[in-house]
């Protein structure tokens, strides 16, 4: 028990020391605050077009701190509301695909045999496609919209969780405490929920954090390509695509949404990398 405690303290200590965790977590918290308080922080309605105020450059007019887009909508307000959309898409897709992946991974690893073979062939088939091709095809077939993008990303994203979970379950299954639980008459469901799930939390957290970065970036890319939400929605990828026409004269319409995407993706990548180094002692040996 004492050793267990030590290990825990060790992890906490390393959390504090890890610069990438600190920076990543700070930026994420900041983005969450911006998302929550977007209505309070926004100087204007993000979807209200005002054709008299089209294409105002940033820092020129007090009413529009970051200028306006080609329809005269306040760019700062749109960027702030965009935080909500990106975070919402990330959280939704990651939670659904993690849930699906964890369930299928546990079933596959725990039961083996036919369920395992079926699930793993499905994983193989999904991974046979380069992920964006698959996502583009799915989103394209389903028609434009945020929901199509999210469905497409769940389809390509769940395999990560299934593979990580299956691997962990396979190595756990042989452990003595699982054997002893079984010999005491615990049901499969009980063993999975009580003994297996708590032991695979760490790798799942790492994969999910890095998954957030991947999903946010991919969702922006799909939206940029025109498969995402339709124009009034202040999605960063959509804004970037709309702004590129005016790249020559109003480059901020292209540069700012890109910066926002990069900052958010970077934050989740930093946090995920940091967490992996802390939670997976095997890897951190390298540094």
């Amino acid at each position: 028990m004492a050793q267990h405690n030590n290990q825990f303290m060790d992890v906490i200590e390393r959390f504090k020391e890890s610069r990438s965790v600190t920076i990543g977590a700070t930026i994420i918290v900041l983005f969450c605050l911006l998302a929550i308080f977007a209505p309070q922080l926004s100087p204007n309605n993000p979807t209200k077009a005002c054709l008299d105020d089209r294409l105002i450059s940033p820092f020129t007019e007090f009413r529009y701190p970051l200028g306006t887009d080609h329809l005269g909508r306040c760019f700062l307000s749109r960027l702030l509301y965009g935080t909500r959309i990106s975070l919402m898409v990330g959280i939704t897709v990651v939670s659904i695909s993690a849930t699906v992946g964890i369930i299928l991974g546990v079933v596959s690893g725990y039961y083996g045999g036919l369920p395992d073979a079926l699930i793993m062939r499905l994983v193989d088939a999904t991974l046979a496609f380069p992920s964006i091709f698959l996502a583009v095809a799915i989103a394209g077939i389903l028609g434009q919209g945020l929901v199509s993008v999210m469905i497409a990303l769940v389809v390509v994203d769940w395999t990560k969780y299934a593979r990580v979970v299956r691997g962990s379950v396979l190595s756990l299954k042989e452990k003595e405490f699982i054997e002893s639980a079984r010999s005491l008459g615990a049901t499969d469901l009980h063993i999975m929920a009580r003994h297996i799930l708590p032991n695979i939390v760490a790798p799942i957290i790492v994969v999910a954090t890095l998954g957030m970065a991947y999903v946010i970036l991919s969702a922006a890319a799909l939206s940029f390509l025109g498969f995402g939400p339709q124009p009034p929605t202040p999605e960063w990828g959509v804004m970037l695509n709309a702004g590129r026409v005016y790249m020559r004269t109003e480059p901020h319409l292209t540069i700012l949404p890109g910066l926002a995407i990069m900052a958010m993706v970077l934050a989740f990548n930093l946090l995920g990398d940091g967490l992996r180094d802390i939670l997976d002692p095997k890897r951190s040996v390298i540094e």
Partner: protein
Amino acid sequence: MFNYVLKRILQLIPALLIVSVASFSIIYFAPGDPAETICTGPDGNTNPESVEKFRIEMGLDKPLHTQYLIWLNNVVHGDLGYSFRSEKPVFEHIITAFKATLKLSIVSLVVSLIIAVPLGILSAIRQNSLIDVSCMVGASLGVSMPNFWLGLLLMLLFGVYLHWLPVAGYGAGGDIEHIILPAITLGTGSAAVTARLMRSSMLEALGQDYIQTARAKGVPEQVVIGKHALKNALIPVVTMVGLNFGYLLNGSVVVETIFGWPGLGSLIVDSINMRDYMMVQGCMIFVAVLFVAVNMIVDISYKYIDPRIHYGAA
């Protein structure tokens, strides 16, 4: 060795079957009658004659599994159907597009290795120096940067402001001027990933006992790094080429669309926008087979790169 290859191919068959079913069913997921879907233009007009012709050709009056078998038989024989837009065989379009994508991918891969390998090595041998820190910060940014954004910024800088390079296009069959910007855009992401990997595997190699052995023999430090450590450290990097290929294929969707590069990525996006579903179907199955084949070839070639791996009983 031969047995190993055969086994790998046999293992792929179930997955490829699922891939084919998924690609086949694309048409059925689209709303409406598949024949009409396929023969309806972006303007919403349908040509009843071609609908009928298609119905008979594809056996759409037959049960679904028969339709699938007919389709699969065609695919195996290289017949991916006809593009609605051009009325030319889908396969022809795909091969043309594939050549463009291949060209872009190879140049991007070279660009990314030229950037990543030296920087990764330098970061490792000057660990925690200013060079190391800036390379790794750069790598973090590179991984997180949306490639469509980077592409637009490069376009803005080199095309619009400096007028050094064409903003977009394929030029005369993808000449050097036209390939530079998309190749850099596409190569940056994989360069970032590769540089990190190069650094960590170089650090790992430099910490091994055999490095001490080499130094104990009186081997000069540049040879210790360039031969004894690098030969080991490159193994994971070369291993990554397969993964990199997937990375590049994925990136090509966006990059080709921005730069108007007529490859597989822009082909699939255009085909979806034009509702040219036969083409989408063909692209999907082609890309999947290509991707799987590349991964398998890379897998098998490890044997020649890493003498420690042997595929005897495995």
